[in-house]
Protein backbone atom coordinates (compact mmCIF):
# COMPACT_ATOMS: atom_id res chain seq x y z
CA UNK A 1 0.00 0.00 0.00
CA UNK A 2 2.85 2.39 0.86
CA UNK A 3 4.56 1.66 -2.44
CA UNK A 4 1.30 2.21 -4.31
CA UNK A 5 0.82 5.51 -2.47
CA UNK A 6 4.25 6.65 -3.57
CA UNK A 7 3.54 5.66 -7.18
CA UNK A 8 0.17 7.44 -7.14
CA UNK A 9 1.88 10.56 -5.81
CA UNK A 10 4.39 10.47 -8.65
CA UNK A 11 1.75 9.78 -11.29
CA UNK A 12 -0.54 12.69 -10.40
CA UNK A 13 0.02 15.74 -12.59
CA UNK A 14 -0.86 18.13 -9.78
CA UNK A 15 -0.17 17.94 -6.03
CA UNK A 16 -2.84 15.84 -4.29
CA UNK A 17 -3.83 15.34 -0.66
CA UNK A 18 -2.99 11.72 0.21
CA UNK A 19 -3.50 12.07 3.98
CA UNK A 20 -6.57 9.81 3.85
CA UNK A 21 -5.03 7.35 1.37
CA UNK A 22 -6.54 3.94 2.02
CA UNK A 23 -8.52 1.06 0.53
CA UNK A 24 -11.70 3.13 0.19
CA UNK A 25 -9.97 6.01 -1.60
CA UNK A 26 -11.19 6.32 -5.19
CA UNK A 27 -8.92 7.04 -8.14
CA UNK A 28 -10.72 10.39 -8.57
CA UNK A 29 -9.97 11.26 -4.92
CA UNK A 30 -6.25 11.04 -5.60
CA UNK A 31 -6.45 13.13 -8.76
CA UNK A 32 -5.95 10.36 -11.28
CA UNK A 33 -7.57 11.32 -14.56
CA UNK A 34 -7.72 9.24 -17.69
CA UNK A 35 -4.19 10.19 -18.75
CA UNK A 36 -2.50 9.77 -15.40
CA UNK A 37 -4.04 6.28 -15.15
CA UNK A 38 -1.69 5.37 -18.00
CA UNK A 39 1.22 6.83 -16.06
CA UNK A 40 0.17 4.77 -13.05
CA UNK A 41 0.07 1.58 -15.12
CA UNK A 42 3.56 2.27 -16.46
CA UNK A 43 4.93 2.95 -12.96
CA UNK A 44 3.29 -0.14 -11.45
CA UNK A 45 4.87 -2.32 -14.12
CA UNK A 46 8.31 -0.77 -13.70
CA UNK A 47 8.44 -0.32 -9.93
CA UNK A 48 6.43 -3.25 -8.59
CA UNK A 49 7.29 -5.59 -11.43
CA UNK A 50 3.72 -6.61 -12.12
CA UNK A 51 2.27 -6.38 -15.60
CA UNK A 52 -1.30 -5.24 -15.32
CA UNK A 53 -3.50 -5.30 -18.36
CA UNK A 54 -4.91 -1.86 -18.97
CA UNK A 55 -8.47 -3.13 -19.15
CA UNK A 56 -8.09 -4.65 -15.67
CA UNK A 57 -7.11 -1.47 -13.90
CA UNK A 58 -9.45 0.78 -15.85
CA UNK A 59 -12.37 -1.15 -14.38
CA UNK A 60 -11.30 -0.44 -10.80
CA UNK A 61 -12.51 2.55 -8.85
CA UNK A 62 -10.75 2.27 -5.46
CA UNK A 63 -7.19 1.89 -4.23
CA UNK A 64 -8.30 -1.22 -2.31
CA UNK A 65 -9.40 -2.91 -5.53
CA UNK A 66 -6.13 -2.06 -7.25
CA UNK A 67 -4.16 -3.38 -4.27
CA UNK A 68 -6.13 -6.63 -4.35
CA UNK A 69 -5.42 -7.03 -8.06
CA UNK A 70 -1.69 -6.55 -7.45
CA UNK A 71 -1.76 -9.11 -4.61
CA UNK A 72 -3.63 -11.56 -6.87
CA UNK A 73 -0.87 -11.10 -9.44
CA UNK A 74 1.79 -11.94 -6.90
CA UNK A 75 3.06 -8.51 -5.87
Amino acid at each position, binding site marked *: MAKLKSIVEDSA*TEPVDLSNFGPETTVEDVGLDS*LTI*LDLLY*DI*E*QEIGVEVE*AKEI*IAFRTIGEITQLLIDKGA
Partner: protein
Amino acid sequence: MKTLIHLIEFGLARILLFLFDTLPYRFNCSVSKGAANLWWWVDRKRQKVATNNIIRSGIETDPKKARQIAKRSIQNFSMMLVESLRSDEYLEGEDWQNHITLDIKPDVLEVLEDPERPLILAAGHFGNWEIAAHLVSRYKPVAGITRGMNNPYIEKLVKSRKGRYRFRPIPKHDNNAGRLIEELNQKNILALLFDQHAGKYGVMIDFFGHPAATFKTTAMLHLVTKAPLCYADCVRTGPMQFTVTTSHLIKQAPTGNKQDDIKAILTTMNEHLEHTIRKDPAQYLWAHRRWRD
Protein backbone atom coordinates in the same frame (compact mmCIF):
# COMPACT_ATOMS: atom_id res chain seq x y z
CA MET B 1 -35.06 30.12 -31.03
CA LYS B 2 -31.90 28.00 -30.77
CA THR B 3 -33.74 24.99 -32.20
CA LEU B 4 -35.01 27.08 -35.11
CA ILE B 5 -31.47 28.24 -35.91
CA HIS B 6 -30.23 24.65 -35.71
CA LEU B 7 -32.98 23.53 -38.08
CA ILE B 8 -32.16 26.30 -40.57
CA GLU B 9 -28.46 25.36 -40.42
CA PHE B 10 -29.38 21.71 -40.88
CA GLY B 11 -31.53 22.58 -43.92
CA LEU B 12 -28.66 24.53 -45.49
CA ALA B 13 -26.24 21.70 -44.76
CA ARG B 14 -28.59 19.21 -46.46
CA ILE B 15 -28.84 21.43 -49.54
CA LEU B 16 -25.07 21.82 -49.67
CA LEU B 17 -24.53 18.09 -49.29
CA PHE B 18 -27.08 17.39 -52.02
CA LEU B 19 -25.22 19.74 -54.34
CA PHE B 20 -21.85 18.21 -53.46
CA ASP B 21 -23.24 14.74 -54.07
CA THR B 22 -24.81 15.52 -57.43
CA LEU B 23 -22.55 18.11 -59.04
CA PRO B 24 -19.40 16.98 -60.85
CA TYR B 25 -16.37 16.48 -58.62
CA ARG B 26 -14.23 18.99 -60.52
CA PHE B 27 -16.94 21.65 -60.16
CA ASN B 28 -17.00 21.01 -56.41
CA CYS B 29 -13.26 21.43 -56.33
CA SER B 30 -13.53 24.83 -58.01
CA VAL B 31 -16.19 25.93 -55.52
CA SER B 32 -14.02 24.64 -52.69
CA LYS B 33 -11.02 26.60 -53.95
CA GLY B 34 -13.11 29.75 -54.22
CA ALA B 35 -14.39 29.29 -50.66
CA ALA B 36 -10.84 28.75 -49.44
CA ASN B 37 -9.66 31.95 -51.15
CA LEU B 38 -12.48 33.86 -49.50
CA TRP B 39 -11.58 32.35 -46.13
CA TRP B 40 -7.95 33.29 -46.72
CA TRP B 41 -8.76 36.96 -47.27
CA VAL B 42 -11.30 37.19 -44.47
CA ASP B 43 -9.40 35.36 -41.71
CA ARG B 44 -6.28 37.50 -41.49
CA LYS B 45 -5.35 36.00 -38.15
CA ARG B 46 -5.07 32.46 -39.56
CA GLN B 47 -3.26 33.85 -42.57
CA LYS B 48 -0.62 35.33 -40.29
CA VAL B 49 -0.35 32.23 -38.07
CA ALA B 50 0.12 29.93 -41.08
CA THR B 51 2.71 32.17 -42.74
CA ASN B 52 4.68 32.63 -39.51
CA ASN B 53 4.63 28.87 -38.83
CA ILE B 54 6.09 28.16 -42.28
CA ILE B 55 8.86 30.71 -41.77
CA ARG B 56 9.58 29.38 -38.29
CA SER B 57 9.82 25.82 -39.57
CA GLY B 58 12.58 26.96 -41.92
CA ILE B 59 10.82 25.41 -44.91
CA GLU B 60 10.61 28.84 -46.53
CA THR B 61 12.28 32.00 -45.32
CA ASP B 62 10.95 34.40 -47.95
CA PRO B 63 7.69 35.85 -46.48
CA LYS B 64 6.10 36.18 -49.94
CA LYS B 65 6.74 32.51 -50.79
CA ALA B 66 5.68 31.45 -47.31
CA ARG B 67 2.36 33.25 -47.84
CA GLN B 68 1.87 31.39 -51.12
CA ILE B 69 2.40 28.05 -49.36
CA ALA B 70 0.05 29.12 -46.56
CA LYS B 71 -2.68 30.04 -49.04
CA ARG B 72 -2.34 26.73 -50.88
CA SER B 73 -2.46 25.00 -47.49
CA ILE B 74 -5.89 26.54 -46.84
CA GLN B 75 -7.02 25.52 -50.34
CA ASN B 76 -5.85 21.97 -49.70
CA PHE B 77 -7.73 21.85 -46.40
CA SER B 78 -10.90 22.98 -48.15
CA MET B 79 -10.29 20.35 -50.84
CA MET B 80 -9.98 17.74 -48.12
CA LEU B 81 -13.50 18.46 -46.98
CA VAL B 82 -14.87 17.93 -50.50
CA GLU B 83 -12.87 14.73 -50.96
CA SER B 84 -14.02 13.36 -47.63
CA LEU B 85 -17.66 14.02 -48.48
CA ARG B 86 -17.25 12.02 -51.71
CA SER B 87 -14.81 9.40 -50.45
CA ASP B 88 -17.30 6.51 -50.29
CA GLU B 89 -18.08 7.02 -53.99
CA TYR B 90 -14.44 6.37 -54.85
CA LEU B 91 -13.24 4.07 -52.10
CA GLU B 92 -16.19 1.74 -51.74
CA GLY B 93 -16.25 0.81 -55.43
CA GLU B 94 -14.47 -2.06 -57.13
CA ASP B 95 -11.94 0.33 -58.63
CA TRP B 96 -10.74 1.94 -55.39
CA GLN B 97 -7.19 0.97 -56.26
CA ASN B 98 -7.38 3.34 -59.22
CA HIS B 99 -7.52 6.15 -56.66
CA ILE B 100 -5.17 4.93 -53.96
CA THR B 101 -1.57 3.82 -54.08
CA LEU B 102 -0.51 1.91 -51.00
CA ASP B 103 2.92 1.94 -49.44
CA ILE B 104 2.22 -0.05 -46.29
CA LYS B 105 5.33 -1.56 -44.72
CA PRO B 106 5.25 -5.38 -44.39
CA ASP B 107 5.32 -5.39 -40.57
CA VAL B 108 2.36 -2.99 -40.46
CA LEU B 109 0.49 -4.96 -43.12
CA GLU B 110 0.95 -8.08 -41.03
CA VAL B 111 -0.78 -6.34 -38.10
CA LEU B 112 -3.56 -4.97 -40.31
CA GLU B 113 -4.28 -8.42 -41.70
CA ASP B 114 -4.27 -10.10 -38.29
CA PRO B 115 -7.75 -9.87 -36.72
CA GLU B 116 -6.26 -10.54 -33.29
CA ARG B 117 -3.97 -7.52 -33.20
CA PRO B 118 -4.94 -3.88 -32.68
CA LEU B 119 -3.01 -0.98 -34.18
CA ILE B 120 -2.35 2.57 -33.02
CA LEU B 121 -2.08 4.68 -36.13
CA ALA B 122 -0.57 8.12 -35.56
CA ALA B 123 -0.95 10.83 -38.17
CA GLY B 124 -0.61 14.57 -38.59
CA HIS B 125 -2.87 17.12 -40.24
CA PHE B 126 -1.32 16.43 -43.62
CA GLY B 127 -2.89 15.64 -47.00
CA ASN B 128 -6.21 13.91 -46.40
CA TRP B 129 -6.18 12.08 -43.07
CA GLU B 130 -9.88 11.22 -43.46
CA ILE B 131 -9.13 9.25 -46.63
CA ALA B 132 -6.36 7.40 -44.78
CA ALA B 133 -8.83 6.40 -42.04
CA HIS B 134 -11.39 5.33 -44.65
CA LEU B 135 -8.79 3.25 -46.47
CA VAL B 136 -7.48 1.35 -43.43
CA SER B 137 -11.05 0.63 -42.35
CA ARG B 138 -11.00 -1.93 -45.17
CA TYR B 139 -8.82 -4.03 -42.87
CA LYS B 140 -10.58 -3.53 -39.52
CA PRO B 141 -12.78 -0.95 -37.78
CA VAL B 142 -11.16 2.41 -37.12
CA ALA B 143 -11.85 4.56 -34.08
CA GLY B 144 -10.83 8.19 -33.91
CA ILE B 145 -11.45 11.21 -31.74
CA THR B 146 -13.85 13.66 -33.31
CA ARG B 147 -14.88 17.15 -32.38
CA GLY B 148 -18.62 17.31 -31.76
CA MET B 149 -20.82 19.77 -33.62
CA ASN B 150 -22.75 22.42 -31.72
CA ASN B 151 -25.77 21.62 -33.86
CA PRO B 152 -27.19 18.19 -32.90
CA TYR B 153 -28.97 17.76 -36.26
CA ILE B 154 -25.76 18.35 -38.21
CA GLU B 155 -23.92 16.08 -35.76
CA LYS B 156 -26.35 13.29 -36.62
CA LEU B 157 -25.94 13.98 -40.32
CA VAL B 158 -22.15 13.85 -40.12
CA LYS B 159 -22.29 10.62 -38.11
CA SER B 160 -24.57 8.99 -40.67
CA ARG B 161 -22.10 9.83 -43.44
CA LYS B 162 -19.08 8.59 -41.53
CA GLY B 163 -21.01 5.46 -40.66
CA ARG B 164 -20.81 4.45 -44.29
CA TYR B 165 -17.41 3.00 -43.60
CA ARG B 166 -16.22 1.27 -40.46
CA PHE B 167 -15.38 4.40 -38.52
CA ARG B 168 -16.23 4.63 -34.83
CA PRO B 169 -16.17 8.24 -33.66
CA ILE B 170 -15.01 8.90 -30.11
CA PRO B 171 -16.44 12.28 -29.05
CA LYS B 172 -13.76 14.63 -27.75
CA HIS B 173 -15.54 14.94 -24.37
CA ASP B 174 -15.44 11.13 -24.03
CA ASN B 175 -11.75 10.96 -24.90
CA ASN B 176 -10.53 9.11 -21.83
CA ALA B 177 -7.89 6.42 -21.68
CA GLY B 178 -10.47 3.73 -20.84
CA ARG B 179 -12.43 4.48 -23.99
CA LEU B 180 -9.28 4.37 -26.12
CA ILE B 181 -8.05 1.16 -24.48
CA GLU B 182 -11.44 -0.43 -25.09
CA GLU B 183 -10.92 0.05 -28.84
CA LEU B 184 -7.51 -1.61 -28.62
CA ASN B 185 -8.98 -4.47 -26.58
CA GLN B 186 -11.46 -4.98 -29.40
CA LYS B 187 -8.47 -5.30 -31.78
CA ASN B 188 -9.50 -2.21 -33.74
CA ILE B 189 -7.37 0.51 -35.25
CA LEU B 190 -7.06 3.59 -33.08
CA ALA B 191 -6.29 6.55 -35.34
CA LEU B 192 -4.90 9.55 -33.47
CA LEU B 193 -3.83 12.96 -34.77
CA PHE B 194 -0.86 13.92 -32.61
CA ASP B 195 0.25 17.31 -33.93
CA GLN B 196 -2.07 19.67 -32.08
CA HIS B 197 -0.92 22.01 -29.33
CA ALA B 198 -1.22 19.96 -26.13
CA GLY B 199 -0.94 22.80 -23.62
CA LYS B 200 -0.22 21.77 -20.05
CA TYR B 201 -0.89 18.10 -20.88
CA GLY B 202 1.91 18.04 -23.39
CA VAL B 203 5.53 17.02 -23.45
CA MET B 204 7.89 19.45 -25.15
CA ILE B 205 9.21 17.76 -28.28
CA ASP B 206 11.11 19.43 -31.10
CA PHE B 207 9.07 20.06 -34.23
CA PHE B 208 11.22 21.53 -37.00
CA GLY B 209 13.81 22.32 -34.36
CA HIS B 210 11.48 24.21 -32.03
CA PRO B 211 9.94 22.73 -28.86
CA ALA B 212 6.20 22.11 -29.25
CA ALA B 213 3.79 20.82 -26.59
CA THR B 214 2.88 17.36 -27.87
CA PHE B 215 0.18 15.01 -26.57
CA LYS B 216 1.72 11.93 -24.94
CA THR B 217 -1.41 9.75 -25.20
CA THR B 218 -0.16 7.87 -28.27
CA ALA B 219 3.16 7.09 -26.63
CA MET B 220 1.63 6.06 -23.29
CA LEU B 221 -0.92 3.80 -24.96
CA HIS B 222 1.89 2.01 -26.80
CA LEU B 223 4.07 1.70 -23.70
CA VAL B 224 1.28 0.46 -21.46
CA THR B 225 -0.85 -1.71 -23.75
CA LYS B 226 2.07 -2.84 -25.98
CA ALA B 227 -0.27 -2.35 -28.94
CA PRO B 228 1.64 -1.98 -32.23
CA LEU B 229 2.17 1.63 -33.28
CA CYS B 230 2.97 3.19 -36.63
CA TYR B 231 2.97 6.57 -38.34
CA ALA B 232 0.88 7.10 -41.48
CA ASP B 233 0.18 9.82 -44.01
CA CYS B 234 -2.03 10.27 -47.04
CA VAL B 235 -0.59 12.50 -49.76
CA ARG B 236 -2.82 13.97 -52.47
CA THR B 237 -1.18 13.22 -55.82
CA GLY B 238 -3.97 14.40 -58.13
CA PRO B 239 -7.74 14.85 -58.33
CA MET B 240 -9.09 12.14 -56.01
CA GLN B 241 -5.71 10.42 -56.20
CA PHE B 242 -3.78 9.57 -53.05
CA THR B 243 -0.81 7.66 -51.77
CA VAL B 244 -1.17 6.19 -48.29
CA THR B 245 2.20 5.50 -46.67
CA THR B 246 3.05 4.02 -43.31
CA SER B 247 6.27 3.85 -41.38
CA HIS B 248 7.57 0.57 -40.06
CA LEU B 249 6.23 -0.28 -36.61
CA ILE B 250 7.58 2.13 -34.01
CA LYS B 251 8.83 -0.03 -31.17
CA GLN B 252 9.75 1.21 -27.73
CA ALA B 253 9.87 -1.18 -24.81
CA PRO B 254 9.52 0.47 -21.38
CA THR B 255 13.02 1.10 -20.01
CA GLY B 256 12.00 2.37 -16.58
CA ASN B 257 12.62 5.98 -17.56
CA LYS B 258 9.14 7.07 -18.54
CA GLN B 259 10.02 10.54 -19.78
CA ASP B 260 12.79 9.21 -22.03
CA ASP B 261 10.49 6.50 -23.42
CA ILE B 262 7.77 9.03 -24.21
CA LYS B 263 10.25 11.43 -25.79
CA ALA B 264 11.79 8.70 -27.93
CA ILE B 265 8.40 7.76 -29.39
CA LEU B 266 7.13 11.29 -29.91
CA THR B 267 10.43 12.43 -31.43
CA THR B 268 10.25 9.57 -33.94
CA MET B 269 6.66 10.51 -34.81
CA ASN B 270 7.55 14.19 -35.26
CA GLU B 271 10.51 13.26 -37.46
CA HIS B 272 8.24 11.19 -39.69
CA LEU B 273 5.78 14.06 -39.94
CA GLU B 274 8.52 16.59 -40.73
CA HIS B 275 9.83 14.32 -43.48
CA THR B 276 6.33 14.08 -44.95
CA ILE B 277 5.74 17.84 -44.78
CA ARG B 278 9.05 18.65 -46.49
CA LYS B 279 7.92 16.64 -49.52
CA ASP B 280 4.91 18.94 -50.08
CA PRO B 281 4.59 21.72 -47.48
CA ALA B 282 1.32 23.06 -48.92
CA GLN B 283 -0.48 19.88 -47.91
CA TYR B 284 0.09 20.56 -44.22
CA LEU B 285 -2.42 22.49 -42.14
CA TRP B 286 -0.20 25.36 -41.05
CA ALA B 287 -3.04 27.52 -39.73
CA HIS B 288 -2.95 25.72 -36.41
CA ARG B 289 -0.90 27.43 -33.65
CA ARG B 290 1.55 24.59 -33.08
CA TRP B 291 4.08 26.71 -31.23
CA ARG B 292 2.66 29.01 -28.58
CA ASP B 293 5.67 30.40 -26.76
